[in-house]
């Protein structure tokens, strides 16, 4: 099951699959074909083991105990922070804030940065391909401050209309928030270009990287973005852990997000002094094992090489695009020139939910629905789509299984 890659290297998918216990389980008496990786990814043994090891060897609270286990746990948690720093090529580990996920990371910026910098009549600029998590927090801010939410449109391929984006970047724009990769369409946005343009006008940029980090190498210093958010569970780590990267100078100037323990230096009833960045953003006992498991997932991915994974997924995407395009009545939604990881489609005369139910009977897991991106669905005039999304363990044979199962959909719906 070796896949030839660009540059002559190879990814041993069979070996990789054996790292993921769940891939060996049958579903509805057939082998599981898991093509819902944009929703969440499966977890390798290395990640599962890191959680077990944490609880068996060092479970304790961090940053406060004088005892041995607390010292171990604190070190493991901070080591994980540094693994994330290297993963994103951030300059300083203090620029890495642990959150519950990308959603909380974006809410943190909307709250702690947005409330201080966005006022009545100011504008926040997003794009027409955002996930609800990069829309709703800005609507909260808009409504609270009397600000405006501007939306740069996308074209029929699902690409950002750059000229419109540029036009909507005005002297009132206080923040740009944009997806790196669209979860519903797979479009890869030209982040460097967006950041350069925004910075030329003095506007900071938040990048929602939830769908990008599993598929491409992310270098926040090269992108020069001001904030970058992602979720652990999309890169083979558990749910409930995520990351906000922020430039240190920005984070330092921001007030805390939530109040509580862990984030304070001293508390009296009159006055509280906060810890420094990043701890002032991490109120309460954090998801310690989640952070450690995220570190383990990053090490696992580094061991394989993100570039190798990207090349393999690129091959899968190209092959799936080719095969699905040949299915009668199938329309791919999202045909950007640069895509990653995701194919959304609809099948003429069959609702995506019915597609999903029939595929599920074949052991094939895909996502059907609006993908938490209803404005994208509206843009393409559909209520929902079916979406296959790939991970490092998927194979060409699984793409074949998907195509064969779509044949069964036509069989069921074709009878008259």
């Amino acid at each position, binding site marked *: 099951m070796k896949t030839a890659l660009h540059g002559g290297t190879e990814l041993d998918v069979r070996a990789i699959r054996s790292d993921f216990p769940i891939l060996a389980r049958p579903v509805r008496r057939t082998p599981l074909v898991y093509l819902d990786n944009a929703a969440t990814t499966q977890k390798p043994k290395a990640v599962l083991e890191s959680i077990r090891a944490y609880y068996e060897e060092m479970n304790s609270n961090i940053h406060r105990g004088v005892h041995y286990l607390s010292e171990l746990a604190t070190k493991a948690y901070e080591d994980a922070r540094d693994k994330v720093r290297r993963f994103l090529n951030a300059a300083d580990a203090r620029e890495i804030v642990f959150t519950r996920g990308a959603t909380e990371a974006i809410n943190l910026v909307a709250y702690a940065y947005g409330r201080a910098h966005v006022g009545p009549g100011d504008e926040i600029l997003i794009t027409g391909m955002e996930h609800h998590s990069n829309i709703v927090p800005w609507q909260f801010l808009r409504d609270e401050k009397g600000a405006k939410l501007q939306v740069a449109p996308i074209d029929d391929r699902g690409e950002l209309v750059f000229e419109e984006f540029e036009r909507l970047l005005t002297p009132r724009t206080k923040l740009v928030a944009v997806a790196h990769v669209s979860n519903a369409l797979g479009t890869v946005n030209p982040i460097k270009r967006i950041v350069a343009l925004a910075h030329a006008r003095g506007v900071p940029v938040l990048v929602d990287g939830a769908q990008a980090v599993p598929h491409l190498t992310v270098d926040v210093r090269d992108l020069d973005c001001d904030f970058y958010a992602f979720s652990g569970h999309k890169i083979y780590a558990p749910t409930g852990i995520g990351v906000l990267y922020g430039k240190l100078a920005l984070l330092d100037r921001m007030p805390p997000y939530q109040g509580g323990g862990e984030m304070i230096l001293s508390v009296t009833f009159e006055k509280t002094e906060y810890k420094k960045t990043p701890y002032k953003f991490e109120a309460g006992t954090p998801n310690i094992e989640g952070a450690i498991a995220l570190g383990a997932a990053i090490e696992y991915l580094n061991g394989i090489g993100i570039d190798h994974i990207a090349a393999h997924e690129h091959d899968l995407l190209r092959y799936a695009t080719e095969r699905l395009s040949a299915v009668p009545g199938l329309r791919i939604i999202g045909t950007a020139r640069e895509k990653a990881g995701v194919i959304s489609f609809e099948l003429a005369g069959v609702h995506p939910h019915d597609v999903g139910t029939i595929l599920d009977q074949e052991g094939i897991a895909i996502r059907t*629905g609006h993908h938490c991106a209803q404005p994208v669905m509206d843009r393409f005039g559909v209520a929902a789509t079916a979406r296959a999304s790939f991970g490092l363990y998927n194979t060409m044979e699984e793409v074949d299984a998907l195509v064969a199962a779509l044949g069964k959909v036509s069989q*069921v719906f074709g009878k008259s």
Partner: protein
Amino acid sequence: MDELNQLNELYQEVILDHYRRPRNFGTIEEADRRAMGHNPLCGDRLALALKMKGDVIEDIRFQGAGCAISTASASMMSDGVKGKTHAEAEAMFEKFHALVTGKSNGGADAGKFAAFAGVSAFPVRVKCATLAWHTLKAALEGMNKTISTED
């Protein structure tokens, strides 16, 4: 039952027929009662209009786009409740609900809705089958609002 049979049970010919050619599709200009149904999980929306004569559903129309199960359910429901009283329609919903959730095996009680018995093998699709009925209930109760499968 194997998977293919389960699928054939779900997507019976009568269901596919109502999906492709929904009955009573449209709206009623002079409707006495209206309600909207919404399934936020899949984005399906359904607009229901009723013309009442006293307590009897004299006419019923629906509009909207949905999956095979929700569309066929709305279509067959509209056929089934036409000419029935409010109480009779609610009693039909109760029987229908028991059928699609596997709490009754259909039998003579299920009548024309027996084709929906296959839904019980697909728990995530029960909301698709009951969306139209919940909307009907809201319309009959004069709520004239949008009801959601997630409320």
